[in-house]
Every structure is written in structure tokens, then in C-alpha cells.
């Protein structure tokens, strides 16, 4: 079975410090992986995507993620957190049949 596991349900960082949101995947083959962000009362917005090209993927708003096959990980990072980054983040995998499978989400809190 294919799945993604978000290792932290809640991450709290100070403004200006680095952000690390962790995601591990389980798949019999290299999946396509995405990070989505959901601000309160807003829809899900794509941050970045990995589709078996470059393993380091840059997204919007300064976020990036690195696909590490040896560790089956796809962690999301940002060098410096901004107050506007406070949101819920979802790691999402996609099968060949376009089935999306979501992680349980990580709530990011940014402390001023």
C-alpha cells in the first residue's frame, strides 16, 4: 500500500528561524509527491511537486523539498520563517491512477 506519513502534527518556530516539516513515504516505486498548504478558511494551495526529475525541488514562497530515496523522505524546508507561513501543511502522494493520498497534516505556528 502506498502512503505518506507526516512525522509531526505540530511544529512551532520563531519568526526568522528555519522551518523543517517532515514527510516519509511508502511506495513500491518512486511516487510523485507534493506539498500543499492550507491557510485558515482557504483552499489547498500547491507549494511544490516532485515528479522524478530533480531531487531538490523549489516551490513558492521560499519553500523547497528534497526527495531522498535512500531515506524514503520528502521533507519540506524554508530557511527563514515568516508570520504568513503559519498554516496547515500536507504531504501528498499520487499513484499512476491519479489517486491522491494525504498525510495527516502538520500545523505550523510561527512565533513573533
Amino acid at each position, binding site marked *: 500500500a502506498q502512503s505518506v506519513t507526516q512525522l509531526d502534527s505540530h511544529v512551532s518556530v520563531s519568526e526568522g528561524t528555519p522551518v523543517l516539516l517532515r514527510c516519509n513515504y511508502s511506495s513500491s516505486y518512486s511516487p*510523485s509527491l*507534493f506539498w*500543499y498548504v492550507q491557510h485558515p*478558511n*482557504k*483552499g*489547498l*494551495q*500547491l507549494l511544490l*511537486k516532485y*515528479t522524478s526529475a530533480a531531487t531538490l525541488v523549489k516551490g513558492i514562497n521560499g519553500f523547497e523539498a528534497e526527495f531522498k530515496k535512500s531515506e524514503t523522505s520528502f521533507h519540506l524546508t524554508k530557511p527563514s520563517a515568516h508570520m504568513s507561513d503559519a498554516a496547515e501543511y*500536507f504531504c501528498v502522494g*499520487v499513484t499512476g*491512477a*491519479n*489517486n*491522491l493520498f*494525504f*498525510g*495527516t*497534516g502538520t500545523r505550523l505556528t510561527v512565533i513573533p
Partner: protein
Amino acid sequence: EAGVAQSPRYKIIEKRQSVAFWCNPISGHATLYWYQQILGQGPKLLIQFQNNGVVDDSQLPKDRFSAERLKGVDSTLKIQPAKLEDSAVYLCASSLVLEAFFGQGTRLTVV
């Protein structure tokens, strides 16, 4: 490019009533999804369409939920009768290849 449109944005109904949600996907997107997101949880797939055919509805409570996608474009999701535990945000998404685009969702409150 216009995004995925959903209506209504908010709906409050009493238990045992019926409700319907509407979704207009991005033009040309063959795949359409309906997700249920309960407060504090990740989205759960209810049904996936490919054009007007159902690909996956294994988690759709078929005794009360129904969905259709006539002509492979717009879609409606209906709940009849609603239960308290149906209170959630219902998200519609569409996809051409891999990347899914989400609407803003319909927040349903069942009282």
C-alpha cells in the same frame, strides 16, 4: 486560468435534511475529486471521477451520499439525510496530469 469553483461556501442544515454541493472544475481537467475534511484532520477522498466515470468511490457512504458528473464537466455531491458527523469542509479538486487544483470548499454544519 480560472480555478475550481465551488458553491455554496457555507451551509447550515438540521440533521436528517438533505444538502447538495456543486463543483465546476478547471476547463479540460478530466479528473475530478470530492474530499471530506473534518476539522483537525486531513482530507479524505469520497469519490474520484475520470471524465463522467467513477474511478474510486470506496469511501463514499453510499447509503446517504451520492455524486454525479454529468457530461464529464460539473459535478454535484448530495447528502440525504445528513447526520451530525457529516459536519466538515467538502473540497472539490480537478486534475489534468498529476497536479490537483482545489476549490475553496464548502463548509457544512449539521445541527
